[in-house]
């Protein structure tokens, strides 16, 4: 174990290196670029034995990962924002083909208009593609999560997206424990053979046309149609929640540090109001909750670390005693509400005595999110909750309400 001062991007690169990623596909975009620059320098210096392919677009970056992963290699890439949007077709392909690719997303707002700063709209907009999606609070978590992501991916045959806030984490240096390669090797064995092996002597047609209905193969065996494959994919994703937990425990045993899991919990025991978010905002909210507590407001924090699969059952259980939950989303499902707020409401639907759920949108395009503004929003929500208001429009934190267009 070596203590290093690393940015979030460097932590991501260390994660890929320690996981012994074998093929790295790279295309730059702010604020992700230093990930691929760092990996490139290691591959060139020989410190990291991998195939490094500097492709001509994000679409091709994911395509290279798809090819490499199909061939049995451990594939890695990273992106942000419009890069992620551009590779969306392949995001779906990677998941549907059940390839254990790991990709980091340094979260950044989507254009238009151009803005390179942080929000989480990019990864949220591909939440339905069938990837496991993990959100990190700090740089230590980024490194640990990237390695754990391969552990999860290769046990579930699902791709895993490791998300962290652009600039707030990607460019902020903090002390990170870098585990010894041998310890990581003990945790993460080489990749097992893929579901379908490319072999001249046992030729397979991988990923062909599949009709909706089941169909018999040449030996008369009935094989599932598209619906069965998609159902299996969905079930694998649901089951991945346990695997994410197991990864955290196995990591704890191997490395001696418990990082990971589905949720982050802070002072939930007697919380009247629970603040919910994903990413670095979780760290900030724990400080806000502590301040509120010293003012006599019983606030707690529930961080969503695993956003897909959504840990609905665990969330229900953690929130059962609270009066209200206030979700801070750094993204919006335009025309409806914040994505985490919506999912939280769905998770609580029908649960006896469940709290009121309020949504607030903050930090879009890197808008500063101050502890004061967050605390004010909590107090407002609490007033409504005590008055029995069960539903209200999504609030905007830090938005100038008048005099601007």
């Amino acid at each position, binding site marked *: 174990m070596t203590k290093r001062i690393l940015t979030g991007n460097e932590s991501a690169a260390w994660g890929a290196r320690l996981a012994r990623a074998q093929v790295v596909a790279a295309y730059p975009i702010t604020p992700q670029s230093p990930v691929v620059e760092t990996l490139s320098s290691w591959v060139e210096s020989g410190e990291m034995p991998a195939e490094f392919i500097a492709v001509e677009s994000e*679409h091709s970056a994911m395509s290279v990962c798809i090819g490499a992963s199909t061939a049995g290699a451990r594939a890695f890439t990273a992106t942000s924002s419009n890069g992620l949007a551009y590779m969306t077709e392949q995001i779906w392909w990677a998941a549907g083909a059940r390839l254990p690719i790991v990709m980091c997303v340094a979260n950044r707002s989507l254009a238009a208009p151009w803005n390179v700063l942080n929000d989480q709209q990019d990864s949220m907009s591909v939440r339905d593609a069938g990837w496991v999606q993990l959100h990190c609070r700090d740089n230590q978590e980024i490194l640990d999560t990237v390695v754990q992501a391969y552990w999860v991916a290769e046990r579930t045959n699902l791709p895993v997206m490791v998300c962290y806030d652009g600039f707030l984490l990607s460019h902020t240096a903090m002390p990170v424990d870098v585990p010894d390669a041998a310890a990581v090797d003990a945790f993460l064995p080489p990749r097992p053979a893929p579901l379908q092996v490319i072999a001249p002597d046992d030729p397979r047609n991988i*990923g062909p046309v599949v009709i909706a209905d089941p169909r018999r193969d040449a030996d008369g065996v009935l094989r599932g149609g598209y619906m069965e494959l998609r159902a299996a994919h969905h079930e694998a994703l649901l089951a991945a929640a346990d695997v994410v937990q197991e990864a955290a425990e196995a990591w704890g045993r191997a490395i001696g540090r418990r990082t990971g899991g589905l949720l982050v919990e802070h002072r939930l025991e007697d919380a009247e109001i629970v603040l919910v978010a994903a990413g670095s905002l979780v760290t900030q909210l724990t400080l806000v909750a502590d301040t509120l507590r010293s003012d006599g407001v019983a606030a707690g924090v529930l961080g969503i670390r695993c956003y897909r699969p959504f840990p609905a059952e665990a969330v229900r259980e953690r929130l059962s005693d609270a009066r209200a939950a206030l979700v801070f989303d750094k993204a919006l499902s335009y025309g409806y509400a914040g994505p985490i707020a919506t999912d939280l409401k769905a998770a609580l639907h029908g649960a006896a005595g469940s709290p009121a759920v309020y949504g607030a949108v903050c930090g879009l395009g890197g808008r500063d999110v101050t502890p004061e503004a967050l605390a004010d929003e909590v107090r407002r929500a609490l007033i409504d909750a005590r008055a029995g208001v069960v539903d209200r429009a999504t609030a905007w934190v830090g938005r100038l309400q008048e005099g601007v267009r």
Partner: protein
Amino acid sequence: MTRITELPVEERVLPGNRACAGCGLGIGLRAITKALEGRAVMTVPASCLTVLGGMYPVSSVRMPWVNCAFPSTAAVAAGIAAGLRATGRGDEMAVLAMAGDGGTADIGIQALSGAAERNEDLIYLCYDNEAYMNTGTQRSGSTPSGARTTTTWSGKRENPKDVPRIMEAHRVPYVAVTSAAFPTDVYDKVAKARAMRGLRYVHMHTPCPSGWGFDPALSVRLGKLAVESGIVVLYEVEHGVFRLTGRSAALAKAGAALTPVGEYLKAQSRFKGLDAEAEAAIQAWVDERWAEALERHARGA
């Protein structure tokens, strides 16, 4: 040059596949797979080739075959090649990316150009049926002028993109143009490409009875006519050295005149209604390219 009787007897494209009767692609694929002897992994984007390959859970080609998204062929193939190298299997088989003209000249050209610039170790084979056949015969960048498609109802107005020349401009080690009407030419070029390293590009003309509107029995005859009239010129550029091959080389050597394009055009309903002026323009386009090919052949570059 390999003779038809010398081709490997083993068939890797099974009968009863889903290609239309008389499909040039099916004929060409037979020769390609013979040249690869099954020791290659194919990368196949959305196209008629996907359909030919069969529907889960059966397959009509006995070769490792990886389907991929429409724009991604060259990049997925590059990933497969890298993945095989990274897992110590780089020498076990060649990597063949095989896409239609739409998947090559249009949507896939970015990935192809990137792979060519990086000189990825793969064979990229474009089968050119001169339109988007899988989605119902819409124009592609490779559709010849005058051809009616379902997005050019009165005939396409532009000449086709010359993808082989675009690939030559990337200075990849091998560029070849072949035709499914000459299976041994296909075989020889793919076999040669297989023995080389780096990015090898093969462009294969494939007559398409359904899309072009002709009797399926005439596919090979029409493919040959395309070469004899200079619509398709068979050649290869090996490490920068240009030479005409097969029937095109024979025509050049004999100093024979090309068959007028009219005979080729009138055999297909897609050119119905082409006026004399448009036909003359096509003839002029063919003559110019043929003269250029003869000149390059003589010069060897």
